[in-house]
């Protein structure tokens, strides 16, 4: 997913590096399971847009979905896979490198 090059920005996973998908992955990295409505309400996006981004992450095997019923109501729960967690850790590390790099550039 990352571009080639020596600048740290090339190490950024472009699959995660969008506002909605970053928000999804950040929430899932903190919790074991998160329900669709929590993501929708926290990220403040429409059902269809969120579903589109979730499908992209699911396709990349970054997240998994479990469908079920709670008191007869359908619910979908999402979790981060090991691949997704690794990708997110790498992404955060790359982000921090860029921020540090930028701070160093400003100092010099």
């Amino acid at each position, binding site marked *: 997913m990352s571009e080639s090059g020596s600048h740290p920005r090339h190490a950024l996973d472009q699959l995660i590096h*969008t*506002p909605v998908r*970053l*928000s999804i992955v*950040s929430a899932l990295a*903190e*919790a*074991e399971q*998160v329900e669709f409505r929590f993501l929708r309400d926290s990220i403040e996006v429409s059902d269809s847009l969120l579903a589109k981004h979730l499908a992209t992450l699911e396709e990349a095997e970054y997240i998994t979905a479990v469908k079920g019923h709670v008191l007869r109501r359908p619910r979908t729960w999402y979790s981060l896979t090991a691949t997704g967690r690794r990708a997110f850790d790498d992404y955060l590390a790359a*982000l921090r490198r860029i921020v540090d790099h930028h701070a160093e550039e400003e100092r010099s």
Partner: protein
Amino acid sequence: MDQSSSHEMPPAEALGRAGRMSELARDGSRWFGYMLILLGLVTTGFFVGQALTEGWLAAAFAWLYAACVAGLFWYVNRQRVVSRPTALITRRVTFAYVSLVILTSVVNSTLWDDGSLWPCLVALLPALPCWSAAWWVLRR
């Protein structure tokens, strides 16, 4: 929030966004700790009520306990975030709680003489796994 997937996010903004979402998910998962504190209180209240009262008042405590447990079950089912520690300890806490509720019921109904204050002390037993798990979950 920007809904465009092609929006170019500055790294500092991306870090901030990740931090905010982590915090929201963490806050959303605290319910388990609060639920355990309440369950411990309700259970202790039930056993103390059973020990100190009899007749319709003891029955009222039993009904109140059942209603609170049903309410907590409803509350649990409404939650949208399950934290990693919650997923890790739910089974163990449930097993310890149910075992200690059974043990407390048996001990309090067979061992003590009337007027003894021991049932009130033993009533704390089922709450211990709840409160220790709540402390463990909430301090994280």
